[in-house]
């Protein structure tokens, strides 16, 4: 009888432990729990240890959760930069154990939100610009102003790179990506064939070109909007600014009530976007195509152009046909008549940051801070600029551009005098963006008009202001 009972209890324990290991999510939380107890152990015996070597015999463990997938390192500049910096730092600190948890961006966003919900954060993690307000309010991020002030290369940081990471007077993250979300990649010979030796500078010409391409059976602009953000982030962000100007966008971001989505300028931008979709500027399945296949249309020379972020540059250099690689030129969207936005501008800025969870052990805090400044600091920018020709969070001068692929050289040339305007989805409130992305998809599908869309986005903005 007793034996039976023991057996049953044992099996129930086994069942519980199996259940606990069921999902990847749970496993990692377990790890964190374990790691926290380790941390706690270390805290109990700080007196005997010197500040320089916080762990003594015990190894310090730093946990990082991020979206830099190692398999994509070869074709993604920032991923390569991240790993290179991490490896460098690890080589300098062989006694520190770095534990990474890596997920694709969309999964990463879900996972870190779930972790944030229970306040169980890794030491370092990626933070989107629009998350800072929430995360800081929940005490999930340690202030970084001190570390940045004492950083030797602090003057090299570009102006405004810390804007999104600043809450009150305090900075809470270090930029790990300098993003330009709206660039027009175009296949120059294809445009020449229909009579445009340069990319058109007026929308009339664009629509004319759209008609001509459609007659020839070529997709004018390839777009993959299944995930709903590309149309908003890569097109509307830049197009909207053409109509509304910078100040309007900043008022919306600050949610100070001085600008509204129902303002006629923004409604015009929405109408314009709808008009583009309805006049056949994009591939017919733009709302159901994922980003990858849409980019492939351009890479294989089946589309004449593509409006996409700077990340397409690496994709083109790696995956496009030799012809497309050599013929790709880059431009920004044309201006609109009577618009308030600056002419030679496009949406860009720092979107993703890396932040540090508040640390109880000050010695470990110093170590984590040091790693963070290395991952997003000057060396990182030097790497990105010299190896990939990217515009990085810090200004790096004196780089020889002649060895880069032609498309990259185009990008560097273009970026020299382009002004940057805010990227919507990185800076506006997440729930406003969710409504906007969803509505823009319907707008372009023709099932909602610009007025309705504007009113719905505005209603969401007002509801979060309460």
């Amino acid at each position: 009888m007793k034996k039976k009972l023991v057996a049953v209890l044992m099996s129930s324990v086994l069942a519980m432990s199996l259940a606990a290991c069921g999902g990847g999510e749970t496993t990692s939380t377990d790890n964190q729990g374990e790691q926290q107890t380790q941390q706690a152990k270390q805290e109990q015996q700080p007196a005997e240890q010197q500040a320089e070597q916080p762990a003594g015999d015990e190894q310090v463990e730093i946990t990082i959760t991020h979206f830099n997938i190692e398999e994509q390192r070869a074709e993604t500049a920032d991923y390569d930069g991240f790993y290179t910096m991490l490896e460098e730092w690890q080589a300098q600190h062989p006694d520190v154990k770095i534990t990474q948890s890596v997920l694709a961006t969309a999964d990463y966003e879900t996972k870190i939100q779930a972790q944030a919900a229970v306040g169980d954060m890794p030491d370092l993690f990626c933070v989107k610009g629009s998350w800072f307000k929430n995360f800081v309010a929940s005490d999930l991020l340690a202030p970084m102003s001190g570390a940045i002030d004492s950083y030797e290369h602090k003057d090299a940081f570009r102006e405004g790179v810390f804007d999104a990471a600043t809450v009150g007077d305090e900075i809470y993250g270090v930029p790990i990506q300098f993003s330009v979300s709206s660039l027009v990649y175009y296949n120059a010979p294809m445009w020449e064939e229909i009579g445009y030796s340069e990319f058109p500078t007026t929308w009339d010409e664009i629509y004319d070109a759209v008609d001509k391409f459609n007659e020839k059976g070529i997709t004018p602009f390839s777009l993959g909007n299944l995930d709903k953000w590309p149309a908003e982030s890569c097109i509307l962000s830049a197009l909207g600014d053409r109509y509304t100007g910078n100040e309007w966008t900043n008022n919306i971001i600050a949610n100070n009530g001085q600008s509204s989505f129902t303002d006629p300028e923004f409604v015009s931008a929405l109408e314009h976007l709808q008009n583009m979709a309805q006049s056949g500027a994009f591939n017919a399945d733009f709302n159901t195509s994922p980003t990858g296949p849409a980019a492939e249309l351009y890479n294989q020379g089946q589309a004449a152009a593509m409006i996409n972020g700077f990340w397409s540059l690496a994709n083109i250099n790696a995956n496009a046909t030799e012809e497309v690689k050599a013929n790709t030129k880059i431009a920004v969207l044309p201006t609109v008549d009577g618009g308030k936005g600056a002419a030679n501008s496009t949406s860009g800025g720092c979107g993703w940051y890396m932040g540090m969870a508040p640390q109880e052990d000050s010695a470990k805090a110093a170590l984590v801070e040091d790693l963070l400044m290395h991952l997003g600091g000057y060396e990182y920018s030097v790497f990105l600029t010299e190896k990939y020709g990217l515009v990085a969070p810090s200004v790096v001068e004196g780089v020889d551009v002649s060895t880069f692929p032609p498309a990259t050289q185009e990008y560097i040339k273009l970026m020299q005098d382009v002004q940057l305007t805010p990227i919507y989805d990185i800076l506006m409130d997440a729930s406003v963006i969710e409504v906007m992305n969803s509505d823009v998809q319907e707008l372009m599908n023709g099932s909602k008009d610009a007025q309705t869309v504007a009113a719905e986005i505005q209603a969401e903005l007002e509801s979060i202001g309460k």
Partner: protein
Amino acid sequence: MKNRLKPGPLTFAAYILPSFLLYTFIVFVPIVVAAYYGFFDWSGGTAKKFIGLENYRTLMTDQRFFKALGNNLFLIVFCAIGQIGLAFIFAMLLESRVAKLKSFHRTVSFFPSVLSAVVIGFIWSMIYDYNYGLINTLLKATGMKDKVQPWLSNEKIVVLLVTIPLIWQYVGYYLIIIVSAIASVDSSIFEMAEIDGATGWKKAVHITLPLIKNTITVCITLCIAGNMKAFDHIWTLTGGGPGTASEVVALYAYKTSFLSQKMGYGSAVSIGMLVISLVFVGVIRFVMGQITKEKE
């Protein structure tokens, strides 16, 4: 002897314990916690603001929630007809004398049920694909080029289009349940019916259906529960799009929690979904119970 047949209370409790613990921690506790979070204005993290019933009140007038619920209802109705109806017809065919390779058909029809929803989503997104999809290729081949369209962009029929893969996947599942229900009926009843001249359709409707109605009730309950929590197929096929046209409640709850960062309201949406599911199941059980009584 008595002891061998009936375990003592302690052993009994020990047998129950694992399931009880699992159920409590995996189902019951999360539901209670979600209901509790529904009372807060909470965007994740440690900062929560108690706002009482505000979230639940907002939910009552949330058009997007009710639109998503409408899509769930559509799914339930079409899946009840498509899955259980087709499964019943197939079961009758399998039971008939003319059917060959019965176990082969049973096994093969069950295959889709074991596939991951994500795989199903991908298979069907290939069928609906604009450039290379099966439907458009067939339309082009048969000279109906004007009917070619990006199918999942058509918000008028998109809910139906995402329902079809669900029906396709689970027909086999209900088929197995119904076939085994029919098998458990005394075969002499069918023989008698046949002698009396009830064959084909008549036998199916007047003899078989009444005999397995309890199983059908279970199937409908499963169908409601399954379609109220529909998520993964739709997520991979359309992401709820275009816009919110094919959004279901579970998708809305997920988006609210993780894309809009409204964890509190997202919890309230989930609880709303749970309550409405329970109501549906209750109503169906009541209705089926009434039908059963009348006949008896």
